[in-house]
């Protein structure tokens, strides 16, 4: 029957198959991963209230415009996703939800979207090799990608993993059956999986299969394009910061979402040029009729690959379509001598997600927070070009930004672009021209990205301040509240609720009055795929 595929295609185009007001992956419903939500009626003022004495639980009677608050671990860098009535977030195990999983673990917690009730969790043991590959207590960094009954993520053990969205409660599904061993790590007495544990469908170990040497942390928020998953590998330096142990390992790969089978690896041979590590999550768009995937390189180069792998000899490769070095010459050489990485005035890698918007790529360079502050650069690239577009493809650039790990938010209503940087400044520019509109000083580091929605820009910082700015040409601070612990994550919106995690809690804020009327938030439907 041909009707069903046509209907499905129509619905996908309209963004209706996955509930358009969910936020099912990093970047929400936009495969270009613009940090924007079309939601309306979002709150300006909210307050989590006070902690109940002697506890880490908030007393919601003292809260304002708060739907629910969940205690997570003590370090929470993972970004929230929401799909199918569940909320997913990566954290650590310093607030154990299950006594049988004790000690330093990386955790993905799953909560009920309506109530905030804890449902189940993925428990990932630490790599025996230690912090060089898997830094203590960082927790799970990947924002889970959810599609239907499957969850895709990258673990802190440098694995791409597929999970059952319902956890172990409905049985042990999929090819992978040894969850009890997985939870505790190799060689340890097995744990007995329970209904609050994760059901692993398959996993793909990038260290074993590809020889990847992840530097300190594996973090990719995987990108789903039809049946193909794309992920960066987190390959990088060894402990000395002077050697790349696996220079031939890929930086970027494609896997079959159903089986975890490797479909291809990048042809860019980035390994020997990695400054530090590979941590940029990808985005995608169709340009000139071709599906491209965009990867921010550990060498500071933005790469666009054809999403369709090509077989060459025994292997399959993702072929470069265009690339652009995002570090300008003056960040590389001074007085005829190379500027040594990670000098504050020197070159950087790309940690941010490249954002695709109206046939352009917006991305800025930055470094690991351990390296401190330094010069940055935001580039706007013409995504319709091919080859080396370092010079020819730059529509505009902006060097007023410092190093950043943040991705841009572009407001389609105003055409304004917002970008947070590590030095603590939020920059507002005209996305079309790159003209600077204003800069707001948060006076604290920012690791996460801005979110623009409903005429507002939401952003958190290391001080724990969570600020709402007007998404307008004139700078205006609408509200600011302190969430009691550093906010290293990016806020997201799903079904009228603004979610943001601090290091210790996941907050769901909404307009309580509007929620009480059960008014469905207005959503501007947009095509699923460009």
């Amino acid at each position, binding site marked *: 029957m041909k009707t069903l595929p046509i209907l499905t295609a129509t619905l996908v185009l309209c963004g209706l198959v996955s509930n358009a007001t969910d936020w099912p992956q990093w970047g929400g419903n936009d495969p270009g991963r613009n940090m924007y939500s079309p939601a309306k009626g979002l709150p300006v003022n909210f307050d989590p209230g006070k902690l109940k004495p002697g506890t880490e639980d908030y007393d919601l009677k003292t809260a304002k415009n708060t739907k629910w608050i969940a205690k997570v671990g003590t370090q929470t860098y993972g970004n929230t996703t929401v799909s199918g009535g569940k909320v997913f977030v990566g954290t650590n195990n310093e607030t154990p939800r299950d006594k049988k999983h004790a000690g330093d673990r990386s955790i993905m917690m799953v909560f009920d979207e309506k109530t905030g009730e804890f449902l189940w969790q993925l428990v990932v043991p630490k790599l025996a090799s230690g912090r060089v590959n898997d830094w*203590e*207590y960082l927790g799970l960094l990947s924002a889970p990608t959810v599609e239907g009954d499957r969850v895709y993520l990258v673990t802190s053990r440098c694995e791409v993993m597929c999970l059952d969205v319902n956890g172990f409660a409905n049985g042990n599904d999929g090819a992978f059956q040894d969850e009890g061993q997985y939870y505790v790590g190799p060689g340890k007495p097995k744990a007995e999986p329970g209904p609050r544990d994760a059901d692993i469908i398959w996993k793909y170990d990038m260290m074993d299969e590809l020889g990847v040497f992840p530097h300190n942390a594996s973090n990719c928020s995987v990108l789903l394009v039809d049946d193909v998953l794309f992920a960066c590998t987190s390959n990088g330096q060894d402990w*000395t910061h002077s050697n790349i142990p696996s220079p031939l390992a890929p930086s970027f790969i494609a896997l079959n979402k159903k089986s975890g089978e490797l479909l291809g690896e990048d042809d860019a041979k980035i390994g020997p040029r990695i400054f530090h590590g590979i941590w940029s999550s990808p985005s995608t768009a169709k340009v000139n009729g071709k599906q491209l995937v965009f990867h921010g390189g550990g060498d500071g180069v933005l790469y666009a690959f054809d999403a369709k792998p090509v077989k060459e000899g025994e292997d399959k490769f993702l072929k470069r379509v265009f690339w652009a070095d995002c570090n300008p010459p003056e960040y590389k050489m001074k007085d005829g001598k190379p500027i040594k990485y990670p000098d504050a005035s020197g070159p950087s890698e790309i940690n941010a997600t490249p954002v695709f918007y109206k046939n352009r790529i917006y991305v800025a360079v930055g470094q690991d927070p351990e390296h401190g502050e330094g010069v940055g650069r935001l580039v706007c690239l013409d995504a319709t070009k091919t080859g080396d577009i370092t010079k020819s493809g730059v529509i505009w650039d902006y060097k007023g930004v410092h190093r950043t790990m943040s991705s841009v938010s572009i407001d389609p209503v105003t055409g304004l672009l917002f970008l947070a940087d590590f030095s603590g400044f939020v920059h507002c520019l005209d996305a079309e021209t790159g003209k600077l509109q204003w800069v707001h000083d948060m006076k604290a*580091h920012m690791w996460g990205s801005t979110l623009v929605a409903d005429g507002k820009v939401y952003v958190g910082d*290391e001080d*724990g301040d969570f600020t709402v700015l007007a998404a307008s040409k004139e700078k205006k601070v609408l509200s600011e509240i*302190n969430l009691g*612990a*550093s906010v290293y994550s990016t806020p997201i919106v799903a079904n009228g609720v603004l979610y943001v995690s601090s290091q210790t809690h996941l907050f769901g804020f909404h307009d309580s009055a509007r929620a009480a009327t059960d008014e469905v938030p207005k959503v501007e439907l947009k095509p699923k795929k460009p």
Partner: protein
Amino acid sequence: MPLKRLIDLDQTLSRKERGRFARFSMTLFLLAGAQVAGAGDWPQFRGPTGLGYTEEKNLPLKWSAKTGENVLWKSPLKGAGHASPIVWGDAVVVCTAYWPPEVAEREKVIPEHHVSCHQAGDGKPLWDTLIPPGPWVRKDFRSGAGGGYAAPTPVTDGKLIYCAFGSSVLAALDFQGKIIWRKEIVPYTFDVTLGSSPILYRDTVILFCASAKKGDSRILAFDKASGEEKWRQQFPEMGFSHSTPVIIQVNAKPQMLVLGSGGGNSAKALQSLDPADGKIRWWCRGGGDASSPAYSSGVVYFDSGRGGAGVAVDPAGTGDVSETHIRWTVSQVPEAIGSPVIVGPLVYRLHTPGVLKCWEAATGKLVYAERLEGMTTWASPIADAAGRLFFANAGVTHVIQTGPEFRVLAVNDLGDSNHASAAVANGRMFLAGLKNLHCIGAKP
């Protein structure tokens, strides 16, 4: 007055000296709200008090590498480190680590451990002694200059100089550079490096050895003359720390504040010990890693220095004071590395990204948060007797006027940025850069 006596004031001062100290410290107490040191020497990390106070009030406000303004001299250093210079009389002593150019793989070779002495008047090198390294071949060089091998600042009593290096070794030298004794510190399960500076109390040299491996954390007291261990206190629950202990006087009794909790919080982050025998008097919850506590006006302020809560506690308690003596807390203070300081009624805390926060010491109320552009937050500030704060290092320095209004008096740059804190003695400031040792002072 020999300034080492200010460290253990109640034990060693002569009657006449006590009188002198009382007069100038009372004057300065009114300004700074804390006991401050004499101007002659700078014998340890953060000066005679360990808290970053100097009695100087005529230090130059401005200096510049480009124009030479108030730069009296600079003298090349062999190697680099985070250690601050110390000054005793005409001797300026600094510790550095140096890998010879032929060393290709630094993770396999312990660098040379240099203790060098320069003439305070003109920077002339007097001697340079190599300390045989300890047993720890380190591989984590994230902390920068010298790979973290030369992080601890030396300390002196005017007779001997005591220095520690990241290879896990403690040594005593005389003022001719002769090694008197040397002791390897085992076990060496530190996080990143041995970062805590040795301090002195009476006839002991004390080294805080908080470790990444819980159970190994301890504080050790060695006989100053012989290096023999005199006492130790184990901290079985304590994680790693790089904080240098400070000795304060509370109700005329000395307390040694020891701060450490590893990467998170703990119920015993700040502990007060008797510096004579290491017995624990009280403890307080919080975080402790990179920074030393600040103390004045009856309030101890501390935070981890690596991000986390800031805590102000009254040090007059006993036992667990977390529920009884905490005066206020700040939920999140970003990474700082350097230490805070209290001047008069205000706490000053520089943290990343170069933001100076000022709180009321009594209440924790935020007075201001302002940027000090281009500042490293690794170096610890120095408060002078004129109520000025020097956020000084061999790179960009800001001098601000203390008080409830943020006022920058000067911004200076020596162009040799490093993490080391400044030393102040005899109207001059000494700064260890990556390349040179610099002396700032008014030219005759």
